[in-house]
């Protein structure tokens, strides 16, 4: 009986993971960069919201009005300075520089915010839940997060399909060289992609922080979950990322039902199982990983 509720909670949790993974997926799709600092940037978003809610009378939801545009700017600048140079320097370099960034961010956060654990106030939504039946309860916050995730993914899809910037993003992702020949500024396109990625990361970070406790070292864990969601759902597909997030979330909550300590482990096991499955299928000749992700 608790299992079904666990699965439901897993699906809801999947929404958060999908939101977190969106940016990672976007950056990989457009630039072939896996931003190891992605989780850390999400965490920075949470800490910014924390600053705002601690020192003003703003609610967490209102703080997003400041945090999100700020994140857009941070992402844009990050691409224009660090990542652009990393891309040009070599294939492996973005991994190394974003890892360096991860270390720097985690430690700077610790310096300025202390290693203490915090949580963001989630208002009345945070504590309320629907009781659907004797078996199912749905926390409002989790449902909101899933809704936001779907909304964000949907908006991003719309952006990609219907707008010029979306077409430029897809064109540059396919063939940056040729896009440039047509007048598309690839650097600017990449910067927009990173800006969107960091903004969705910050959004996810804030919701994560409302839902659970966070500390300066929570970044890497979120990165790993986001990455697992992306890989399970298939690199480069936005709705696949939602699916991957849900599968991961369900694996984790079901694992936790068996034993609370199995929470993360269950996710890791499913992740590796998917990898093994893909490796076996690949060996058998099927193309299951997109170009650039597999040998």
């Amino acid at each position, binding site marked *: 009986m608790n299992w079904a509720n666990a699965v439901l909670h897993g699906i809801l949790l999947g929404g958060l993971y999908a939101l977190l993974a969106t940016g990672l997926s976007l950056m990989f799709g457009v630039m072939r960069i*896996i931003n190891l600092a992605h989780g850390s940037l999400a965490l920075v978003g949470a800490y910014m919201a924390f600053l705002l809610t601690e020192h003003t009378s703003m609610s967490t939801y209102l703080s997003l009005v400041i945090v999100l545009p700020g994140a857009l700017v941070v992402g844009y600048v990050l691409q224009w300075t660090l990542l652009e140079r990393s891309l040009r320097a070599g294939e492996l370099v*973005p*991994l190394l520089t974003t*890892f*360096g960034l991860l270390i720097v961010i985690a430690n700077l956060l610790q310096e300025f915010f202390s290693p203490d654990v915090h949580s963001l106030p989630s208002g009345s939504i945070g504590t309320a839940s629907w009781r659907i039946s004797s078996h199912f309860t749905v926390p409002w916050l989790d449902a909101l997060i899933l809704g936001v995730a779907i909304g964000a993914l949907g908006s991003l899809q719309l952006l990609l399909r219907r707008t010029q910037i979306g077409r430029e993003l897809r064109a540059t992702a396919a063939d940056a060289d040729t896009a440039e020949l047509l007048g598309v500024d690839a650097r600017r396109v990449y910067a927009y992609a990173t800006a969107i990625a960091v903004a969705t990361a910050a959004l996810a970070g804030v919701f994560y922080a409302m839902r659970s406790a966070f500390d300066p070292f929570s970044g890497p864990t979120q990165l*790993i979950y986001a990455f697992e969601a992306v890989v399970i759902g298939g690199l480069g597909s936005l709705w696949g990322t939602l699916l991957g997030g849900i599968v991961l979330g369900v694996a984790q909550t079901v694992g936790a039902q068996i034993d609370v300590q199995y929470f993360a482990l269950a996710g890791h096991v499913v992740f590796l199982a998917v990898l093994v499955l*893909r490796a076996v299928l690949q060996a058998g000749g099927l193309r299951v990983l997109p170009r650039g992700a597999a040998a």
Partner: protein
Amino acid sequence: MSVVATTRVERWSAVSVSFTGALAALIALLAFAPLLLGQNSLDNLIQLYFLVILAIMWNALAGYGGLVSVGQQAFIGIGAYGVVFLSVQHSLNPYLAMLVATAIGAAISIPLAAVMLWLRGGAFAIGMWVVAEMFAIFVSLDATLGGGTGTSAVLAFNLRYTPDQRLKYTYWAALAAAATLLVVLFVLLRSRLGASLQAIRDDEEAARSVGVRVLLGRGVLFVLAGAGCTAAGAIILAWQLSILPLGPDSIFGVDWSAKMIFMVLVGGLGTFEGPILGAIVLYLLQTYVSNSGVWYFVMLGSIAIAVALFLPRGVWGAVQERFNLQLLPVGYRLRR
């Protein structure tokens, strides 16, 4: 004038012969250190040796194999916990346990290679990190290994050796491990495998088309790096005696990867001598500037970023290019 008649292909040059000789002599000399140096110095040198091991192993994977791994700490943890498991629970002599643990690490790396080597780039990097996290969780769930609060090999050593003896024997084990791995890597890179790895690095598709076994080459490096990092973990255990599976000081912590990346980037990715230089740099930083805490890691991370962007060949790579110097003859030279 025929170019062919006057050009020779050499492996050894006067410089590299003398340097390699000097290096061998140095290692022999260092073997006598426990008889000459005090405890503090020996302790420091052990640290230097396991840093060297970690650096050359990470470089083997990333610099020669093109595989950036952010999860080698998986093997460090296996090495450390392996020694505890074997020596504390199964009463094996701890130094013998170190050897066995290394073998276990190598054995684990084989099936792991089969799964992980399908991944490339960032997917491989994070995938290995996930593996490390998994091992950490497995260990933390195992009560016999101390669970989440960690464990120690104090008993295993103190029952057999005095602290002074432990220090000496650990020193020799560390020196032997570092020297052995250096030799193994040296021989490997001078072999056909070395040439094929260089080919893969330059142009993977072209290499494949002339029959180079790409997966095999990378597999060998993966297993070597796995074994090497396991050995380093075993030495770290012998040095610090107590370990934790989780938290910021975890033996499975990603901080180890941060150090490995720093050493190899600063020293010179893809060069033989570079990682050794990088290890020395890190060791000096740790000993004389700071060795833990926030600003230490901020410094490491920032320097790593700066080096990756502005000095991509590392200090040694830049020197090598500038002076056309090769101290250890891993490649070929044309002499006219």
